[in-house]
């Protein structure tokens, strides 16, 4: 009998709380889809050493379980309150509290089970979409491959079960405390509007706004972690107090009989809004936090995504580029190996030179925004002691400046399809990373680069280089075409000089650039690494990488030091690593967003009985159908917009700050606003779908059963 009752009640709940059911279905579908990355990752075979995706998905799952458990807990309490009268009747009829608790638990578990099963079916389809997206991110083709994996299923069941276990554990205790009278009275009490100390509470609104303004002004300039933590705690408190202040502010405005309330149905709307915000101020605060996190998560994912879309291809312009710290390396074994594995169209070994000085390094460290004023004396001149320490210990730049001969440079430019450049005898050029092009415009004014003295004897080497009468070179141009400058063709920069100037410099290290036909086989880079390890074992003693001819430049967020850079392997591998950050971030954002909007929708829809009565009264007072529809739309819009707008204001600052840093550090050619705007657009898509469903159901509920 109880089972039948539970089933019937569940069916009713499913109808009344359709939005909740759909969201739970979506969440379980997402859980299945992303859990499949742990067990059925078709890409894993290409990167079996990368565990990052698994770790990130597992981490995301923990957050999602917590938030979903909150949603279920919220809904269980919510439905319990709404049905308190009904529960009172069950108890009145003689049902025991334990049986009632069991009945309610059964209903909820049944509801969960239905959403889990339908979610898994949807998840199987979604998984195909996710794999197709992932494969296309790696630049690979994906063939549909529908399969159920017991691991994925068990993991989804366990995750979903955890959500229910966490949220339902307190339910039984709640039933124990209930009395028939309190159950019957509960509903009436919900309607009571308590207004106390409103003028005092009203002050919370300007205070919250003040704090938010302060947050916009100061966030990013806080120096210690303690300050930041304190500020963020203040922010969370502000989020919650904002709603108390807002509601009190509106109530005070109405009490003061402000002019706005005497226009049309404004009085009704404002009262409705204030009382709604008042009764669920804590929930509104939590929703704002969830929206904020969702916006931040998706913005971060978009940042990484934009780097991948716009810059990853440009990071490795050469098909294959091999580094050797041995300046005399001829790469014979590598060339032989490559000829066996791929079809080289062109093989070009060359050297990077140095003059043993580090004035260019010092210039970079004192002029690039990445380093700020860290390596400057108070008067702005280079702090050479700190610079030497940096160069020796950090491995970011080579110890000495890096140069390339014009003929090598032009040859490489030809390989990449760029136009060749011309230099006169007394000129040099700068090849710089795209990101830094704007920052090095003044380099030509500062550098003092020596040419070749007229009576130069190559045999005496560079010691004679700066002898008296040495002509100085002038800067003929700055080139920022992608040129593999993460340690291969210099770190951040290369100074291009006429070949004759090289005569007075040391060869610093060797490089081999290879242009191949078609794409490289998947594991070519690892094979080249093994080959190099074997070959250089004997050479390692004298390996001058230890003497500082290796570095990776000033990139901070994406640093991938590859001695053997095989474009096809690296771009796919980095794309996979990026996907393991962006995909879980989107996953979290999506679930957080859906959970929050579901609570908003359910709140409105479940109260439609009250609203129906209120709108019916308005209708009797002579409000037209159109006006009522507009009023409903205004009510829902205000209710939906409030936490979303607040979240945009809060996350906006953080996203813009992170975006600016991201753009500065990576050189992604987009505005930091674009991440925020795109996130909001994505957010709006989902938000509007829920809003539309809520609006339609709301109007239907209001219209149904009138007169």
């Amino acid at each position, binding site marked *: 009998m109880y089972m039948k009752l539970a089933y019937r009640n569940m069916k009713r709940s499913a109808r009344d709380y359709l939005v909740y059911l759909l969201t739970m279905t979506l969440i379980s579908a997402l859980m299945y889809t992303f859990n499949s990355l742990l067990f059925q990752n078709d890409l894993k075979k290409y990167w079996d050493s990368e565990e990052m995706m698994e770790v990130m998905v597992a981490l995301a799952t923990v957050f999602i379980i917590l938030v979903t458990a909150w949603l279920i807990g919220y809904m269980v309490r919510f439905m319990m309150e709404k049905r308190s009268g009904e529960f009172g009747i069950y108890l009145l009829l003689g049902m025991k509290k334990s049986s009632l608790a069991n009945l309610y638990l059964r209903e909820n578990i049944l509801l969960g089970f239905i959403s889990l099963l339908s979610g898994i079916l949807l998840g199987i389809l979604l998984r195909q979409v996710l794999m197709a997206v992932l494969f296309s991110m790696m630049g690979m083709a994906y063939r549909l491959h529908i399969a159920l994996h017991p691991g994925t299923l068990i993991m989804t069941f366990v995750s979903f079960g955890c959500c229910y276990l966490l949220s339902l554990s307190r339910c039984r205790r709640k039933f124990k405390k209930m009395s028939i009278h309190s159950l019957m009275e509960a509903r009436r009490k919900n309607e009571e509007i308590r207004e106390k100390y409103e003028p005092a509470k009203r002050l919370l609104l300007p205070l919250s706004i003040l704090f938010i303004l302060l947050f916009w002004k100061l966030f990013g300039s806080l120096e210690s972690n303690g300050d930041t933590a304190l500020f963020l705690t203040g922010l969370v408190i502000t989020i919650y107090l904002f709603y108390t202040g807002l509601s009190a502010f509106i109530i005070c405005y109405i009490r003061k009989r402000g002019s706005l309330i*005497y226009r*049309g149905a404004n009085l*009704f709307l404002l009262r409705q809004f204030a009382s709604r915000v008042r009764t669920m101020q804590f929930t509104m605060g939590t929703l704002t936090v969830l929206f904020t996190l969702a916006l931040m998560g998706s913005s971060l994912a978009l940042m990484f995504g934009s780097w991948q879309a716009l810059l990853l291809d440009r990071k490795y312009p050469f098909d294959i580029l091999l580094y050797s710290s041995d300046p005399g390396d001829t790469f014979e074994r590598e060339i032989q190996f490559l000829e066996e594995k791929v079809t080289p169209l062109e093989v070009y070994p060359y050297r990077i030179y140095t003059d043993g000085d580090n004035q260019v390094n010092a210039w970079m460290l004192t002029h690039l925004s990445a380093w700020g004023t860290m390596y400057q004396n108070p008067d702005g001149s280079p702090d050479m002691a700190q610079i030497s320490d940096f160069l020796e210990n950090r491995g970011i730049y080579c110890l000495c400046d890096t140069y390339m001969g014009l003929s090598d440079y032009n040859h490489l430019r030809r390989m990449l399809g760029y136009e060749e450049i011309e230099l006169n005898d007394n000129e040099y050029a700068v090849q710089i990373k795209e990101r830094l092009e704007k920052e090095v415009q003044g380099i030509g004014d500062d550098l003092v680069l020596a040419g070749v003295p007229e009576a130069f004897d190559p045999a005496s080497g560079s010691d004679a280089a700066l002898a008296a009468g040495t002509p100085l070179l002038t800067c003929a141009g700055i080139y920022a075409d992608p040129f593999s400058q993460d340690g291969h063709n210099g770190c951040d920069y290369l100074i291009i000089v006429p070949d004759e100037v090289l005569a007075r410099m040391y060869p610093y290290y060797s490089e081999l650039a290879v242009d191949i036909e078609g794409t490289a086989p998947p594991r070519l880079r690892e094979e080249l690494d093994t080959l190099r390890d074997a070959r250089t074992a004997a050479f390692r003693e004298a390996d001058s990488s230890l003497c500082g001819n290796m570095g990776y430049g000033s990139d901070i967020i994406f640093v991938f030091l590859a001695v053997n850079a095989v474009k096809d392997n690296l771009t796919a591998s980095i794309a996979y690593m990026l996907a393991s950050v962006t995909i879980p971030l989107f996953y979290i954002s999506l679930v957080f967003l859906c959970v929050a909007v579901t609570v908003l929708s359910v709140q409105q829809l479940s109260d439609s009985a009250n609203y129906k009565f209120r709108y019916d009264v308005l209708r009797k007072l002579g409000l037209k159908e159109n006006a009522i529809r507009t009023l409903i739309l205004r009510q829902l819009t205000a209710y939906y917009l409030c936490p979303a707008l607040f979240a945009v204001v809060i996350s906006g600052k953080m996203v813009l700050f992170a975006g600016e840093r991201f753009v500065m550090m990576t050189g992604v050619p987009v505005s930091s606003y674009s991440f925020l705007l795109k996130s909001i657009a994505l957010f709006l898509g989902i938000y509007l779908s829920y809003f539309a469903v809520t609006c339609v159901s709301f109007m239907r509920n209001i219209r149904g059963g009138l007169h």
Partner: protein
Amino acid sequence: MDHYIRICDIEKYYGSASHATKAIDRLSFAVNRGEFVGVMGASGSGKTTLLNLLAAIDRVSAGHIFYENIDITELSEDALSDFRKNNLGFVFQEYNLLDTLTMEENISLALTLRGVAKKDVQEASAGLMKLLGIEEIRDKFPYQVSGGQKQRCACARALANDPKLLLADEPTGALDSLSSQTLLETFERLNKTLRTTILMVTHDAFSASYCRRILFLRDGKIFHELLRGEKPRQRFLQEILDVLSLTGGSAGENL
């Protein structure tokens, strides 16, 4: 005689063609300006249906209802809304006050919906609250006041638009006897001093005794009519009870 409202041969059916229930059966009567008319009848006699038709909340199946020269059965939904807004006031058994608004705000809203200016809204609602004796509870919410006070507030709201007709559906149904008496005396006063036309549906003889004329309804038809004339209220009450004792039982059994 100045016929203010004319109900001409109206019918109202519910249900489908095969199972139609006739709620109002070819009913005709007229209400004069400034009259206080009561409609009595057992449950199911059609009195609330009649009120809904007069209030333009429901549509007639046949017949016409004229307010002066306007036939409301011919009006569109939007025009009906305007008509309700400008001509009718409602008082219901369940008060129908908005729980999110205070007493004063409930009255003000009826005026702001009609686009009345702020100053006039404040003056009018203050006047109505004074008239109905609810000034002291102006800032209370419905849940904080008694049923009688709620009903007087509903009454004030109904009067806010200076209606041609005040429609009351079992207004004392949820009130104790003292509150009922206060409300009915208020109705009587409104009718006498402001010449408000009132049509009240009730099944309570005591309430009905405050009316000037009573229509008795059975099976959707008027089967009797009582006029108070110059009779004292107690005698009129006795007459009503006599009619009910003669017919009430059979009306109930017919249901």
